[in-house]
């Protein structure tokens, strides 16, 4: 009984503090706080490893969420809440995904309960186009060395690359999220990440593949393997470090199986990128020979 009273008093105090704070937030000309409709469920600072700054911000979003009702999913402002990021925030998230540090969880430290869809969507689009462009360029460079290769702008690669990357970046997080929710039902522990946070983690972790693919233009094989291994290590380290706090209380078997599946799928994606670059040369060679050596 006394504990409940203490809690009630604590909340009221925080609420008055925030009410004093929010008028300042409301009077800024570009009031991003007001447009952010705090759709994510906020852990009210109890039991999760928040710093003091995080607690204030999560409480602020909780208060704003209490002020405005959540818009339905058929309204435009619902989707606008997923794009409520600034340039500096996107760059900060990319940096956090590029250089994962063991102490800083990507979701807690960088996303801070405001996952966005801008990063995952445009990083996937960029990766698809960069793959297609690099495939074209490898073909051009190979043709300069070996004139028997026939050059053609292989446009269907854009479609294939796009479909593969988008499926990976959106379906795998869906499966992962579903699996984590199921495990949470089986064993009571910390709440897992929301679907959008999982999509964010995967989307931003794909960023390292963009420079990796561009650097694969250098036609030195051991250098290509080195870049591939380095990028894959950084990317999967980011993923594993983010997922570890959520599944560390689970049984050993499940934890190891989940992490190894995640790493394996990521490695398969990197392999797929490499194969698509290699196949551009081989397919053009074999098509050229088929076209020109047929009896007419």
């Amino acid at each position, binding site marked *: 009984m006394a504990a409940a009273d203490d809690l009630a008093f604590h909340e009221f105090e925080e609420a008055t503090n925030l009410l004093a704070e929010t008028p300042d937030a409301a009077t800024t000309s570009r009031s991003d706080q007001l447009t952010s409709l705090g759709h994510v469920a906020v852990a009210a600072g109890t039991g999760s490893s928040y710093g003091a700054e995080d607690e204030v911000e999560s409480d602020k979003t909780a208060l704003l969420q209490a002020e405005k009702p959540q818009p339905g999913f058929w309204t435009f402002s619902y989707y606008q809440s997923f794009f409520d*990021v600034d*340039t500096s925030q996107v760059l900060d998230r990319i940096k956090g995904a590029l250089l994962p540090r063991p102490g800083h969880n990507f979701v807690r430290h960088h996303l801070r309960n405001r996952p966005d869809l801008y990063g995952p969507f445009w990083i996937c*689009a960029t990766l698809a186009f960069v793959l297609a462009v690099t495939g074209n360029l490898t073909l051009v460079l190979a043709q300069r060395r070996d004139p028997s290769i026939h050059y053609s*702008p292989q*446009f*269907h690669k854009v479609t294939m690359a796009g479909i593969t990357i988008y499926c990976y970046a959106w379906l795998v997080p869906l499966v992962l999220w579903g699996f984590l929710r199921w495990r949470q039902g089986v064993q009571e522990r910390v709440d897992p990440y929301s679907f959008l946070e999982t999509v964010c983690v995967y989307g931003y972790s794909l960023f390292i593949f963009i420079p990796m693919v561009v650097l694969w233009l250098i036609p030195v094989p051991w250098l290509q393997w080195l870049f591939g291994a380095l990028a894959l290590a950084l990317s999967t380290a980011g993923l594993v470090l983010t997922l570890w706090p959520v599944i560390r209380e689970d049984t050993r078997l499940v934890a190891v199986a989940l992490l190894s599946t995640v790493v394996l799928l990521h490695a398969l994606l990197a392999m797929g990128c490499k194969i698509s670059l290699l196949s551009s040369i081989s397919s053009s060679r074999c098509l050229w020979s088929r076209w020109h050596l047929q009896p007419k």
Partner: protein
Amino acid sequence: MAEVAESPGDPGTASPRPLFAGLSDISISQDIPIEGEITIPMRSRSREFDSSTLNESVQNTIMRDLKAVGKKFMHVLYPRKSNTLLRDWDLWGPLILCVTLALMLQRGSVDSEKDGGPQFAEVFVIVWFGAVTITLNSKLLGGNISFFQSLCVLGYCILPLTVAMLICRLVLLAEPGPINFMVRLFVVIVMFAWSIVASTAFLADSQPPNRKALAVYPVFLFYFVISWMILTFTPQ
């Protein structure tokens, strides 16, 4: 009856005053001239209705739309801060440009290779769906530009790249070689930069200041892809 009524501010006067006699004391017609014509000039308005676009000759209609499109082309070629593209948006220009570009970029039906350049439909889809995606992106980020205005600007700013395609086609008639490629590369890079400058001149102001880069990057990607398709075009 008119003589019997008393004036309101004058109770002591016995002589009958006409009705509403004291009204002139409080009327304001001397202070503010309220004269004028009551009749609405119907003649000029009916002339406007007569010259509504239904009754004019076909040549007038086409010439008017063509002039509007041409004026916007000029605004794209010499970009300065003006509202013409945004205020009177139309989608004729983007359609003409997209169809021209797609016709020139498609691979011929003669060669049946699977790996070739894009088909007509692929170019069309990339241009229009790319423009729609960029518009949705800028609206979701909080920009205050309308959907069709943004489509109009993005479509019109393909004009420099269409000109680049024409020049590349002409250059490809000459003999192939590295000089050929360098000329085409130079032309495409210049026109790509021109497209980006023209579209950001129109679109950048509609975005919130701390998100301008987020809104401009997809435009950069869009024109980069189109430039890439132009540069890698090889006639069969």
